[in-house]
C-alpha cells in the first residue's frame, strides 16, 4: 500500500511538471475536439498526430496521446447529447437518452452527469491501473512463450466475440490481419516474405498506413455516399449545468455500475470502450424497475455508458503496460508511439522507467480533472464547431491524414499504401466485414508468431504444450468456451438485440 502511494507520488511529481501539464491539457483538448467532430475517429487521429509527438520527450508524448484517447471518449458525449450525432462510436448509445434529455430542456444536467460520471470512472480506473500494475507485472514474469501465445489467442477470440455480426466473418478478419502481418522480413532468418523484392515492403506494411486507410479514408468515402444529415442542434442556451440533488441520487448507482463494468471490459483484450458503453446501457435497462423510461430521457441511460466508456478507455492501458499486449487498435498505436521513442512496452517498463509508467497513470487523473473543468464552459465552442459543414470538413481531414502519414517516414509510398487500404476498407464495409478485428490480428501477428515458434521449439515440436501447461491451458479453455457461447443460437440472438438497440 505504502509502495503504491510512493509510486503515485512519484507519478504526480512527474505529471505535475509544467510541461507535462501542458501536454496533458493539449491532449485532452485535441481529444475532445476529435470526439466532437463526427467522421473522424480516435484511431485515425492518433495516427495522424504521431508525427507531432516526435520532437517531444517520451513521457510528454505518451501523456499527450493518452489525453487524446480519453478526451475523445468525453467529447463524443457532448455531440450525442446536443445534436443527436455521436462524435465517437463510444457514445452512440448516449444519444438515446442524452438527446431526449436535451429536448426536454435538461441538456445541462445530461452534460454535467456525463462529466461527473466520466470523472468518477476516470478516478477509479486510475487507481485500478496503479493497483493492478504491480501484481500483473509479476504475473507476467511467470509467462513463457506458450502462455503469451494463448493469451493472445484469448484476446483475439474476445475481439471476435465482441465484434458485431457473424462470428465466422470476424474470425476471417482476424486471420486476414495475421496474414497481412506476415508481409516483410522474417525476424529470425531475415528472408523476405511475400515482398516480391519490393524495397518498400521489406519492413512490412506499416500499421499506421492500414489504420489510416481502413479507419480514416474508408470512413470518409463511406460518409460521402450517405445524404448529409440534418443536424438538429439544440440551440437554446445550455442552462442549469448543476444537476439537481435528485439527478445525482438517481445516477449514482448507474455511475458505479458503469464504472465497474467498463473497467472489467477495458482490461480484457479485444474489449474496449465501445462495447463497454453498450454493455453498461443494456445492463442498466435490464435491472431498472421501469425499463420503459429508457429512450425517453432517463438519466441512468447517460450516466452508465459515459462512465463505462471512460473507465474502459483507461483500463485498456493495463494489458499494454504490464504484459506488452495491446488490447485494441488505439493501444496498438500507442505501441507504435512507444517504439518511436525507443520504449518496448511490457513488464520492464515499470521497473526500468518508473517515472514514465507512473507519470502517465497520474496524468490520466489530472487529464480527467481538466476535462471536467474545461469542458463544461467550452460546450458552446464545441457546438459551434459542428456548424462547419461536412463538405469542408472531409477534405481537411484527408489532407491532414496525408501529411501525417507522409511525415512518419517521409515516404510517399506510405501515402499510396494507405490510399489502397482506403479502397480495401470500403470493400470491407460493403461486404459487412469489420476492420477492428483485422487490425488487432495485424498488430498481434508478429508477436504471436514469435511466441508460437519459441514455444514449439522449447517443447520440441509437441503442440500439446499449450494445453498441458496450466496457465496456458486455462486461457485456451476460456477462449474455447467463449467461442462456443458466441456461436450458441440463443446468445447470438441476444447479441443482435444489444446491437440493434
Amino acid at each position, binding site marked *: 500500500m505504502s509502495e503504491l502511494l510512493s509510486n503515485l507520488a512519484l507519478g504526480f511529481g512527474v505529471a505535475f511538471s509544467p510541461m507535462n501539464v501542458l501536454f496533458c491539457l493539449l491532449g485532452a483538448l485535441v481529444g475532445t475536439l476529435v470526439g466532437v467532430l463526427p467522421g473522424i475517429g480516435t484511431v485515425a487521429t492518433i495516427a495522424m498526430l504521431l*508525427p507531432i509527438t*516526435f*520532437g517531444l520527450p517520451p513521457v510528454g508524448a505518451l501523456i499527450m496521446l493518452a489525453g487524446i484517447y480519453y478526451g475523445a471518449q468525453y467529447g463524443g458525449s457532448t455531440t450525442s447529447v446536443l445534436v443527436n450525432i455521436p462524435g465517437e462510436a463510444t457514445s452512440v448509445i448516449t444519444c438515446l437518452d442524452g438527446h431526449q434529455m436535451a429536448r426536454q430542456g435538461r441538456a445541462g444536467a445530461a452534460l454535467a452527469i456525463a462529466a461527473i460520471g466520466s470523472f468518477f470512472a476516470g478516478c477509479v480506473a486510475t487507481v485500478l491501473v496503479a493497483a493492478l500494475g504491480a501484481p500483473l507485472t509479476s504475473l507476467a514474469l511467470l509467462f513463457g512463450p506458450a502462455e503469451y501465445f494463448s493469451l493472445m489467442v484469448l484476446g483475439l477470440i474476445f475481439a471476435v466475440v465482441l465484434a458485431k455480426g*457473424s462470428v*465466422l*466473418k470476424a474470425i*476471417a478478419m482476424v*486471420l486476414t490481419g*495475421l*496474414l497481412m502481418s*506476415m508481409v516483410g522480413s*522474417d525476424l529470425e*532468418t531475415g*528472408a523476405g*516474405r*511475400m515482398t*516480391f*523484392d*519490393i524495397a*518498400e515492403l521489406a519492413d512490412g506494411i506499416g500499421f499506421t498506413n492500414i489504420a489510416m486507410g481502413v479507419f480514416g*479514408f474508408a470512413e*470518409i*468515402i463511406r460518409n*460521402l*455516399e450517405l445524404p*448529409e444529415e440534418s443536424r438538429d442542434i439544440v440551440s437554446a442556451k445550455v442552462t442549469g449545468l448543476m444537476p439537481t440533488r435528485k439527478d445525482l441520487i438517481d445516477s449514482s448507482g448507474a455511475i458505479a455500475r458503469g464504472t465497474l463494468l467498463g473497467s472489467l471490459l477495458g482490461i480484457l483484450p479485444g474489449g474496449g470502450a465501445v462495447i463497454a458503453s453498450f454493455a453498461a446501457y443494456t445492463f442498466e435497462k435490464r435491472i431498472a424497475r421501469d425499463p420503459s423510461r429508457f429512450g425517453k430521457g432517463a438519466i441512468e441511460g447517460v450516466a452508465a455508458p459515459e462512465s463505462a466508456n471512460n473507465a474502459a478507455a483507461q483500463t485498456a492501458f493495463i494489458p499494454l503496460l504490464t504484459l506488452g499486449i495491446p488490447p485494441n487498435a488505439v493501444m496498438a498505436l500507442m505501441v507504435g508511439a512507444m517504439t518511436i521513442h525507443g520504449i518496448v512496452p511490457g513488464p520492464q517498463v515499470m521497473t526500468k522507467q518508473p517515472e514514465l509508467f507512473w507519470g502517465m497513470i497520474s496524468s490520466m487523473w489530472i487529464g480527467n480533472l481538466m476535462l471536467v473543468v474545461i469542458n463544461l464552459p467550452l460546450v458552446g465552442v464545441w457546438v459551434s464547431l459542428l456548424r462547419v*459543414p*461536412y*463538405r*469542408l470538413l*472531409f*477534405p*481537411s481531414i*484527408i*489532407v*491532414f491524414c*496525408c*501529411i501525417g502519414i507522409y*511525415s512518419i517516414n*517521409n515516404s*510517399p*509510398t506510405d*501515402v*499510396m499504401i*494507405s*490510399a489502397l487500404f*482506403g*479502397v480495401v476498407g*470500403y*470493400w470491407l464495409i*460493403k*461486404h*459487412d*466485414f469489420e476492420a477492428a478485428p483485422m487490425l488487432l490480428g495485424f498488430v498481434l501477428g508478429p508477436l504471436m*508468431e514469435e511466441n*508460437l*515458434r519459441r514455444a*514449439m*521449439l522449447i*517443447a520440441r515440436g509437441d503442440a500439446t504444450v499449450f494445453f498441458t501447461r496450466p496457465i496456458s491451458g486455462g486461457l485456451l479453455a476460456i477462449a474455447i468456451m467463449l467461442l462456443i457461447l458466441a456461436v450458441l443460437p440463443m446468445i447470438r440472438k441476444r447479441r443482435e438485440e444489444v446491437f440493434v438497440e
Partner: protein
Amino acid sequence: MAEDVQSSRNTPHVEEPLTDRLKGGIIITALSLVLVLATFYVSSPTVPRVMAILVAAVGVGVIAGWVPVRAPQDFYGGLALTLLSIFALVASAELPGQRGFAFGPGTAPRLFAILLATMGAAIALVGVLSDGARIEKYKVRGPALVIVGISLFAMLIRPFGLVLATYLAFMISIFGSKEMRWVESAIGAAVMTLGCVLLFVYLLNLPFQLWPQGNAFQLLFAQFADIFKNVFLILQKLVPGS
C-alpha cells in the same frame, strides 16, 4: 426475368439477377485462373493450384447458375478472402518451411493462409445455404476522387512541395462531395494549406519541401518509373511469359 421470385416456406427469397451472377462469376473465375497460372512459376505449387482450380470451378458454377447465391454479400466476400489466401500461398511458396520442429520463415504464413482459406470457404458456404444481404451498389465518383486526391498528394509532395500538394489534394477530393461550391472550396483549401504549413513546418519543424524543386518534373517522372518497376516486379513473379 431477372426478378423471378421464388417463395420458400418462411421468407420469400429473390433470385440473384442474371447480370449480377455473370459479373460475379466471371470475376471469380478469372481471378482464380490467373492464380492457377501463377502456380506454374513456383516450386511447390500443388496445394494452391488445387485450391485455385476448385474456386474457378465454383465461379463457373455461379455463371452457369448451378450455385445458388442466396447471400451475395457473404458469398463473394468469403470467396475473395479465399482468393487472397491462395495468393498468399503462391507468394510464399518459395519460402523454406518447417525443419524438424523449428519453424521456417514460410511456416506461419502458410498456416494462417490455410486457416483463412478455410474460413473464407465457410463464409461462402453460408452464403449459399442461407438467405442474406445483397451487395450494396458501389459508388464511383466519391471514392475515385478521394483516392485520386490522396495519390496526387503522394506523387506531388516531394517534387512540388507541401503547398501545392496540399492545395490540390484538397481541391480534388472536395469534388467527391455533391455539394461542392467553387468559391467556398478555393478559400477553404487556401486556409487549410496555410494552417498545415504553419503547424507542420513552422511550429513542429518537420522537414518538408515547401515549394516546387528546380527539377520537379524530373523527380515526378522518376517516381512514376519506380511505381512501374514495382508493378513489373510483381508481374514478373505471377504472370507467365514475362
